[in-house]
């Protein structure tokens, strides 16, 4: 090996750690405290049953009811669109506000009529909004692909606002959520685009739900982010 080659090899070896460090910890990495992340995407929420009720009449017996017909209510699967903006209070922790909008279908199966009315499924299209706030923790210690991939966990709550068809009736409630996901950033500059996917659980209370109490649902979301 010539002297020039040895010098070159030394430079390469010497520079490798430096170069690697530059990819993971750039001089002014993004995101950092004060960075803002904006994004949007879609959220899938599986449908759920809202319970059965029988339209029944009082009879002369204290223990027997006369069944007129039965209803089974449910909300179909729905996909909502969402927008969010986050503010990094440190390199790993950000607070985020978001809004989600969807148009779920509410349906009621009518069956078992005492006078043989034909079974019918009655439907309506509702509007569903969640105005939420979350705290995100980027798990930088578990990052991969040279720091491009960053897992995160998130938790928060939101104001649930659901409007029945024709906006005739507004029903409100609370939504809590806890998710885990992954951000994958493209580029290494100050301003970056990235992909974000997450999944978790959502707990809704009230809204258009017929059932009392809280309902736990899975949710899956995917979207794009831009940090600056």
């Amino acid at each position, binding site marked *: 090996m010539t002297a020039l080659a040895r010098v070159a090899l030394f430079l390469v070896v010497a520079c490798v750690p430096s170069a690697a460090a530059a990819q993971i910890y750039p001089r002014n990495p993004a995101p950092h405290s004060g960075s803002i992340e904006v994004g949007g995407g879609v959220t899938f929420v599986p449908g759920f049953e*809202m319970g059965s*009720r*029988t*339209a*029944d*009449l*009082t*009879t*002369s017996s204290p223990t027997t*009811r*006369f069944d*007129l*017909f039965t*209803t089974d*209510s449910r909300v179909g699967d729905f996909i909502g669109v969402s927008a969010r903006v986050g503010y990094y209070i440190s390199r790993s922790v950000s607070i985020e506000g978001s809004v989600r909008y969807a148009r779920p279908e*509410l*349906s*009621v199966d*009518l069956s078992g*009529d*005492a*006078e*043989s*009315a*034909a079974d*019918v*499924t*009655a*439907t*309506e299209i509702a509007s569903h909004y969640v105005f939420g706030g979350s705290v995100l923790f980027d798990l930088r210690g578990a990052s991969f692909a040279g720091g491009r991939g960053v897992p995160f966990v998130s938790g928060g709550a939101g104001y649930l606002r659901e409007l*029945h*068809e*024709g906006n*005739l*009736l507004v029903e409100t409630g609370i939504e809590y959520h806890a998710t885990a996901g992954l951000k994958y950033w493209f580029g290494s500059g100050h301003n970056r685009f990235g992909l974000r996917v997450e999944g978790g659980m959502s707990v809704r209370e009230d809204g*258009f739900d*017929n059932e009392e109490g809280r309902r736990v649902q899975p949710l899956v979301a995917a979207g794009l982010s831009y940090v600056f």
Partner: protein
Amino acid sequence: MRRAASREPRSFAIVLLSLVIAAVVCASAPVLGYLKLGTRVGTRTANLRWNDFPIRYYVTERGTTGVTAQQFQTAITTSFGVWDAVDTVDLSAEFAGFTAANPLSGDSMTVIGYQNRPDLDRVLAATNFIIDTQTGEVIESDIFFNTVFPWSTDAAGVTGRHDVQSIAVHEIGHLLGLGHSPLGETEVIPGGRRVLGAEAVMFPIAFAAGSIHDRTLKADDRAGITDIYQTNSARRSHGSISGKVTKNGGGVLGAHVVAFSTRTGALVGGLTLSEDGSYTIAGLEPGPYVIRVEPLDDADINSFFDSDTNVDIDFKVQFHDGVVVVPRGGGVRDVNVKVTAK
């Protein structure tokens, strides 16, 4: 009017018409059906209602076999309280004392008591009015309980005896301006009808003697009384459903329309009241409902309409195909249902 179970009902209008003869100045009201009683004033209908509260009522000083006058009065006062306790209405009543006067006396006193009326051997009790025919304001209303039947005020009811309070709650519903509700199912048996089930105290046919079910108001009764005497807050918090029932492009008169809340399980009924098949069901709590339409075939039509009304009962039971959402303080319109002939 409340009829005994297993008896063919008589028309409420019969008793009212007799009152027209008795009342020289004030005429009485024809029965329009649905949940409210009314009187026609030209082309419009004035609903019967009291304007001055408390309603002062007297109780006859005579008891009957098994029920003293004091027991009877206690049951009547409790029955008024059942209606007064509906939190969406603004009304009150006050016991004014015992009287020797008879019900149906036209003496400007509201009198409730027993009478021996063997000529009305299928009528447990009946309510009569003297009203202002221009405004619908009730001036006097009397209720008689027919001593042809055995009565009881026992807390648990007595088999074979009609419960005074159950029947009184029904008749006081009339006194307050409610008509009969069609919210029940019956089957025809020799000599009349048997109630299979009912979800309104204002259903025209009583349960069998001994039943105390009708001491408690149902959603249909609460909606009806709310429609007449609603508080300002109920006006803002409750809503209505209206629409038309049609068959072959024409309106269906007398169709029984039922709104069922999929959230609370409340059943509230109404009737189409005009030739174009229009109906309105008011006094509903907000939320999603489904609508079912059936012919008026579970009681005598005269229990709801004048005998010359052309009620159509030739159609199949039908559900509306949409979820109907009742708003707070408003109404949802054009909830139309097309039915087909049997």
